[in-house]
């Protein structure tokens, strides 16, 4: 191996080690700032509470489009899937029946709207 070849080899090896160190630094030691967190990553109990707030607002505003927009803020899943998960969690966490009924009401209206569209 010539001297020049060994220099290139060690140079790329140094780059590889630097990349490894950079990844460890950026993923483990100092992860990316919370600017990269999304409401979709919220824990299920917080998502359920937010779903309850959306259902409460829908109950007073009667604006399905706005409710769907708010649901898309909190979850990337289809609205009915998300609401179904939220209601299931609310039932397991023993939410007030009135609160669960609000979410059921919103889910029902979304289902009716989807049936009309189809």
């Amino acid at each position, binding site marked *: 191996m010539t001297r020049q070849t060994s220099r290139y080899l060690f140079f790329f090896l140094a780059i590889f080690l630097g990349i490894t*160190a950079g990844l460890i630094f950026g993923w483990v030691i100092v992860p990316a700032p*919370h600017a990269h967190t999304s409401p979709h990553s919220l824990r299920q109990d917080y998502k359920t509470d937010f779903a309850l707030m959306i259902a409460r607002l829908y109950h007073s505003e009667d604006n399905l489009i706005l409710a769907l927009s708010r649901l898309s803020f909190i979850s990337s899943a289809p609205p009915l899937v998300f609401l179904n998960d939220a209601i299931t969690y609310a039932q397991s966490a023993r939410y007030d029946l009135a609160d669960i009924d609000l979410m059921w009401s919103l889910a029902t209206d979304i289902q009716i709207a989807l049936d009309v569209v189809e």
Partner: protein
Amino acid sequence: MKTPLSNRNEDTREFNPPDSSPEKRTNWYLVTGLVLGFIIGVVFAWWIRPVVYYDIQPNMLNERNKDIYRTTIALVYAETGDLNRASQRLALLDDQNPGMVLGNQAQRYLAEGQEVKAQALALLAAALQQNDMVPDETEILASPEPTATIERVPTQTLPIHPENP
């Protein structure tokens, strides 16, 4: 023909020690590679494939998403008037001074023409400040015993430890 070499005294031959500076120049290219690789790694880890967080709490949201969260809480409070619940939800955002943050956000929304949201935020801010000014009689009468730290819950309807219903 005489050559320059022939003028030299064989006993006093010049001796040039080997130059040590090429060894230092050799090491610098390794340092450059390390630094370059480190920068590439950090850029990849922070922007191209950043860490994805799961099961986060509301206080880990960025400011824009916190604003939306806070607005939703305020709108619900405007409908229900349940200050206790609104306070618990606001506490999840870990704002140092929730009333002030709400007020500032209300002003921003008012300047942007979002009057309904601004009103809701201002209403909740005022209610919180009013609640802070009125002392709670139960707090005055209760004995000064340290309270146990309970897990933060988003609503009153959740049990204290949702993982163990």
